[in-house]
């Protein structure tokens, strides 16, 4: 007693106390008895199915569709004063980027501004009357795009589409100039949001996107969502499980049996690990079916990471369950844990973009490490041992959680 290792030893001893005394099977039987009982109760509880199947599916569609950071089809008005084949071609190419979709054609700028002000469109493409002439003369051809920058994401998307197009045209023009020595059209694109003029391009930047070439948000969100779903369901289920026994009075029966604290804890965890793995399968399959989220890496690696992560959450739940007195309190504490998990783990916001103290906090959370593991394994096919740091952290959290829960848990009435 007293040594810092003693809780660890106690932990190792208590579930396997029987084992050390050569009564392994009795100890194991008790552990399995708890697990079996838990499964029976879960199977009989209609809420379980909801928890296991519907929560993941609802969250998946909610997050997959709603948190969509790809801006597509920004409703756009076209004010084409040039009415030339060149201008029409250009607008077509802008539309082809899928960032904008022309929904109105207008004749005056006032009309266009009206649409913008009323929010019927979020962008206006303005092609000046002399556009075609300037284009063929090979200089100073310019279109303006007016963007409603209320949502910066929309403005950014439109600008990058326009910039991209301008760059393409410019490079095509450079190429043809070099080839033919002739002066083909070059294009200036000006977006009102930036109001900057790009006259010269000293060099051309080519961006190559790896792993999620279409930059689709679900591909990024779903692996993180795995972790979020597991955090909410797993944590809550075990947080409630011990408290429920207390509230229903069955706890007093348990105290009267020889079940050891460790046997009780591990026995209660086991069924939920399986449930967690089922949830992962559901989310991955649904993610593949609905959002075409790829599974590039090793499923075995994912399973290993997931088991550790599930166990880390379950033990955290047990710690909560050992600390509180009622199911209501348990739920409240669990939510206290969810919020930072969702916000600071890199699920909602890019981890690297967070202020440093927030990152330190984030590093403590199991979800942060699991999201790292999932994105690595699922999207980049990273071998799991390259992420050993995160694995070790999760394993450590399990152990700490189990020790803490076992220490805090009293096989006694207050």
């Amino acid at each position, binding site marked *: 007693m007293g040594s810092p290792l003693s809780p660890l030893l106690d932990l190792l001893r208590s579930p396997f106390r029987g084992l050390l005394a050569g009564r392994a099977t009795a100890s194991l039987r008790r552990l399995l008895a708890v697990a079996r009982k838990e499964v029976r109760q879960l199977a009989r509880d209609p809420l379980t199915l909801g928890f296991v199947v519907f929560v993941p599916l609802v969250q998946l569609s909610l997050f997959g569709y709603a948190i969509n950071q790809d801006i597509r089809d920004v409703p756009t008005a076209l004010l084409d004063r040039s009415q030339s084949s060149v201008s029409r071609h250009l607008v077509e190419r802008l539309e082809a980027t899928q960032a904008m979709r022309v929904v109105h054609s207008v004749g005056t700028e006032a009309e266009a501004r009206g649409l913008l002000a009323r929010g019927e469109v979020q962008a206006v493409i303005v092609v000046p009357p002399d556009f075609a002439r300037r284009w063929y003369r090979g200089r100073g051809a310019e279109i303006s795009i007016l963007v409603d920058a209320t949502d910066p994401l929309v403005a950014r998307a439109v600008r990058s589409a326009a910039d991209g197009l301008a760059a393409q045209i410019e490079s095509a023009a450079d190429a043809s100039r070099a080839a033919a020595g002739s002066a083909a059209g070059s294009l200036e694109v000006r977006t009102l949001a930036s109001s900057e003029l790009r006259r010269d391009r000293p060099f051309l930047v080519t961006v190559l996107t790896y792993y999620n070439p279409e930059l689709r948000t679900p591909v990024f969100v779903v692996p993180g969502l795995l972790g979020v779903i597991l955090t909410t369901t797993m944590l809550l289920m075990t947080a409630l499980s011990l408290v429920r026994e207390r509230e229903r009075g069955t706890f007093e029966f348990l105290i009267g*049996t020889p079940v050891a604290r460790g046997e009780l804890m591990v026995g209660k965890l086991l069924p939920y690990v399986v449930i967690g793995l089922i949830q992962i399968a559901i989310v991955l399959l649904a993610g593949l079916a609905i959002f075409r989220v790829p599974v590039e890496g090793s499923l075995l690696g994912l399973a290993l990471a997931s088991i550790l992560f599930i166990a880390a959450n379950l033990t955290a739940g047990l710690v909560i369950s050992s600390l509180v007195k009622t199911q209501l309190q348990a739920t409240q504490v669990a939510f206290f844990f969810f919020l930072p998990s969702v916000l600071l783990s890199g699920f909602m916001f890019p981890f690297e973009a967070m202020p440093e103290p927030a990152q330190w906090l984030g590093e403590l959370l199991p979800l942060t490490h699991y999201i790292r593991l999932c994105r690595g394994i699922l999207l980049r096919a990273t071998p799991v041992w390259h992420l050993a740091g995160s694995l070790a952290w999760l394993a450590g959290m399990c152990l700490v959680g189990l020790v803490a829960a076992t220490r805090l848990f009293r096989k006694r*009435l207050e």
Partner: protein
Amino acid sequence: MTAPVVIEARELHRHFGRLHAVDGIDLTIHRGEVFGFLGPNGAGKSTLLRMLVGVMAPTSGSVQVLGYEMPRQADALRPSIGYMTQRFSLYGDLTVEENLRFAGEIFGFPADERRRRVEAAITTYGLGRRRQQLADQLSGGWKQRLALAAATVHRPEILVLDEPTAGVDPSERRNFWEQIFELSGDGVTVLVSTHYMDEAVRCHRLALLRRGALVALGEPRSLTGELEGRVVEVDAEPPEEVVRRLRKHLEVASVTQLGDRVHALLAVGARAEVTAPRLTEYLRQAGFPDAVAVPARPGLEDVFVAATQSAPAASGAYVDLWQDDTYHGARHGAHRGQGATGVSVAPPRGDG
């Protein structure tokens, strides 16, 4: 008793904040006894039993059960003790059979042995036709049978039953006690708490509890025997008035209304045969023309009154036996179906 001691409690206290639920109790219980704890709600019966079983730690004092110190060595005691809680504590969402199976497994029996024991329990307690029923759907009596079956599936040496018959109908209660004596016959030491006087009388020894303290301890017959010749039963209308009048009589130590009857406990030294006619005369003169006072056999109620009276009470003080109306209410048979046998004294609720 010459049988070996199985439970020994010394100076046992348990406080909940300012409430002293158990307030300095010493107990010695021998092998094979059926030992009863009688007392009203809030007397500390459940708290005491919980400490004896080792599911609750005492505030101070010590408990030894079969040589194990409670609650420190409680886990080592588990295979030897069975505990049936006052509130049903098996799983309502499991069937009868599943509950028994869980009980068998959690005590660590191998599969075949466990199966044998579960079947035996189902047979012994007649649970066969209800084995597939969810525990929540059982009636009070069947729940108690199931709980007893689960508490004995590991065949403990000591069995602790906390108000096992609360809320159970009379014929079920009789069955239950038959089971208790059967177990006792097999050498099991049984501790049982109750607030039914008729059940308490059946115990080998009895501890009377009031406000966390032992007020009397002994064999039921010797407890009542000590009061032989000191109890007079009075029949007169209206009883409330009679009580008030009797208190004024010098030979009366205390008066208790038990339903329609009035029990007068006589002062030490008085003799019922002599005093009874005097009381009849006294009451008739006081305006109760139909009054009849006769010597009566003392019951446990009287033991209670005597025990709680002996110390501070002034002569003639009215003793509110069970502290509140629960006792009298039940005596009137008006206690929400509880008083069917006329001896129930409390509703089937928690015991602090």
